[in-house]
C-alpha cells in the first residue's frame, strides 16, 4: 500500500460532503438497499428461474398433462380457469426465495454493517421487499405472455387485466413478509424452503386454483373458502376472464392488511433479535 497518499479526514462530517435532504429518509434508504438486491439478482439470473421457467413448466404440465383429465373436455376452457390459479400459486411459491436469500445474507455479515449504520432497522427488510416487486412483475408477465402463446385470452378489458396484475403484486408484497419472518427465524436457507413449502403447498393446492371448490368435500370447502390464495385467485379470475369480483377483492385486501399487521412486526422483531 502506498504511504504517500494523504489520509482521509476523520472528522465526523466533512463540509465537502453534500447531504441529501432529510425528507423521506427511510424510503430513500430502502430504495438504496433495494438496488443492492437487484444488482445481486442481475449478477445471478438463475435466481429468477422460479418466476420465469417454472411458470412455463407449470402451464405446460397442468394444461397438457392433467388438463384433459381434470376438465373432461375443452383444454382451452381449462386454461382460462387455470391460469389465474397458477398465478396465485406462483406468487406464494415466489415468496420463498426472499426468506432464503435474507437468511443466507444475514450469515455473511453484510447485515452487521447495516445494523451499525444510522438507518432504520426495517430498511434492509423493506428494501428487499421493494426489489422483489420486479420478480413478481416478471412472474405476471410470463404467465400472461406465455398463456397467450398457448391460447389464454383476457375476456374483460386491458384495464381490468392491469388491475389483476396490480392486485396480484400488491398481495405478493404482503404475503412475502411470512417468508421474511421464517427467513429470520430459520437456521439455514434450506430450512426456510422446507418450512415455506409446508405452508405454501396446502395454501396453493387447498384452494380453487386447479379445480372448482364445489367438487371438494365439505370440510375442505370450509378451508378453501377462507384461504387467502383462493380469494386472490377468485379476484384475478374475475378481472381477467370475467366473473363477480367484489367479495373476493374485499377478502383479498382484508387478508393483505392482516398479513402486514401480523408478519411485519414479527419479522422486524425476529430481525432485531437475531444477533
Amino acid at each position, binding site marked *: 500500500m502506498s504511504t504517500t497518499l494523504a489520509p*482521509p479526514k476523520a472528522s*465526523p462530517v466533512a463540509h465537502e*460532503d453534500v447531504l441529501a435532504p432529510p425528507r423521506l429518509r427511510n424510503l430513500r434508504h430502502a430504495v438504496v438497499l433495494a438496488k*443492492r438486491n437487484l444488482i445481486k439478482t442481475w449478477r445471478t439470473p438463475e435466481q429468477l428461474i422460479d418466476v420465469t421457467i417454472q411458470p412455463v413448466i407449470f402451464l405446460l404440465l397442468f394444461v397438457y398433462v392433467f388438463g384433459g383429465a381434470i376438465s373432461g373436455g375443452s383444454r382451452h376452457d381449462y386454461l382460462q380457469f387455470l391460469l389465474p390459479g397458477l398465478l396465485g400459486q406462483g406468487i406464494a411459491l415466489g415468496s420463498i426465495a426472499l426468506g432464503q436469500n435474507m437468511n443466507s445474507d444475514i450469515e455473511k*455479515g453484510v447485515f452487521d454493517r447495516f445494523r451499525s449504520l444510522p438507518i432504520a432497522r426495517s430498511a434492509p427488510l423493506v428494501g428487499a421487499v421493494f426489489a422483489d416487486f420486479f420478480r413478481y412483475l416478471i412472474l405476471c408477465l410470463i404467465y400472461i405472455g406465455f398463456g397467450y402463446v398457448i391460447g389464454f385470452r383476457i375476456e374483460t378489458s386491458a384495464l381490468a387485466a392491469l388491475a389483476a396484475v396490480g392486485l396480484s403484486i400488491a398481495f405478493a408484497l404482503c404475503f412475502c413478509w411470512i417468508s421474511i419472518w421464517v427467513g429470520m427465524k430459520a437456521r439455514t436457507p434450506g430450512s426456510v424452503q422446507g418450512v415455506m413449502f409446508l405452508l405454501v403447498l396446502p395454501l396453493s393446492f387447498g384452494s380453487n386454483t386447479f379445480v372448482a371448490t364445489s367438487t371438494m368435500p365439505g370440510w375442505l370447502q370450509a378451508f378453501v373458502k377462507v384461504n387467502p390464495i383462493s380469494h386472490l385467485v377468485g379476484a384475478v379470475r374475475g378481472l381477467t376472464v370475467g366473473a363477480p369480483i367484489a367479495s373476493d377483492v374485499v377478502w383479498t385486501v382484508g387478508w393483505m392488511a392482516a398479513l402486514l399487521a401480523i408478519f411485519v412486526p414479527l419479522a422486524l422483531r425476529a430481525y432485531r433479535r437475531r444477533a
Partner: protein
Amino acid sequence: MTYAIEAQGLTKRFGNTQALAGIDLAAHQGTVLGVLGPNGAGKTTAVRVLATLLRADSGTARVAGYDVARSPQQVRQNIGLTGQYASVDEDLTGVQNLVMIGQLLDLRAGAARRRAHELLEWFDLSDAADRVAKTYSGGMRRRLDLAASLVGRPSVIFLDEPTTGLDPAKREDMWDVVRRLVDDGSTVLLTTQYLEEADALADEITVIDHGRVIAHDTPDGLKRVLGGQRLSVRPSDAAHLDVLATLLGEIAGRRPEREGRDTLTVAVDGDDVLAATVSRLHSAGIRVTELSLHLPSLDEVFFTLTGTRTAADTDTEEEAVA
C-alpha cells in the same frame, strides 16, 4: 482527557454461555485500545455491544459521548465497524459497496461516488474498483471492508480482528492504516489474538479471558509488572550448556530454563547483569551465538495471566459468539 469509549460492568449471556461477565473498557480519544484475548474470550461480543449490534444484559457503555443503549442512532452516526469476517457484499463491486454505504449515510449520489473513489484510492483499490468483491484477494477484501467502515468519517472505529488470516506483509500494511487513522484523531478499539499486534499498535491493552478483564495497562507496563527482564544466552557449542546453566544461575540467583534446543533463559533483576554476564562468559571461555536482554514477550505475559496458552498455540476453538 476525554474518553471516546467507556464501558462499565458489561454482561451478556447466551443460553449457558456467559460471554461477558462484567467488562470495563476505556479508551481516550485519539488512542488505540487493544483488546487482547484468546478465542471465545468475549472480544467480539464486547465489540458488538459497543457498536450497538447487541444489547448488554447489564452495565453501561458510552461511545463518542453517547449511551449505546439509550442513543444507539447517535452512536451509529459516529462509529465505523469492521467485523471479524469481512462484511462487504461479495456480489457488489468495490465502488458499489462504498457508494451504497455513502447513500445510506445520507450522502447524495455524487458525493457518495466521490467519497468511494477517494477511499478506494487511499486503500490502493482503484484498479479493482469495478470488480466484484468476490474476486478480491483476502487482503484486498479487508481493505475494502475497512474502507467501508470509514465512509462516514467515524470518530470511533472498531476493528474486530482486522488482520486474522492475513500474511505478515499485509498485516503490516493494515497496521500502517490504523496508525494513520489515529494520527488523524480517530479512536480505535482493536481486538486481536496476536500479542505482537497489540504490542505494535495499542496505547493501552485490556486483556480479557472468559468474559472478564484480567489486566489493563500499557504494553510496557504490562510486561514490567508481570515479568521483569529476561536474559537469553545460546552457546556456540551445545556441550557448554551445563557449565553455562551453572554460571547463569550464579548471576541471576535463579535456575535458568531451557528454551528451544540450546538456549537458556533466566529472569534477571537490574540492567547491569548484561556486563557481568559478558565478562563471566569471557573468562569461562564460552563463546555464544546469541545473547540478549529483553522484556518478556506478551505471549509469556499472557501465559502468566491466564495459565493457558494463547490462540497462536492452540487455535482450535471457535469464538463462542461470532
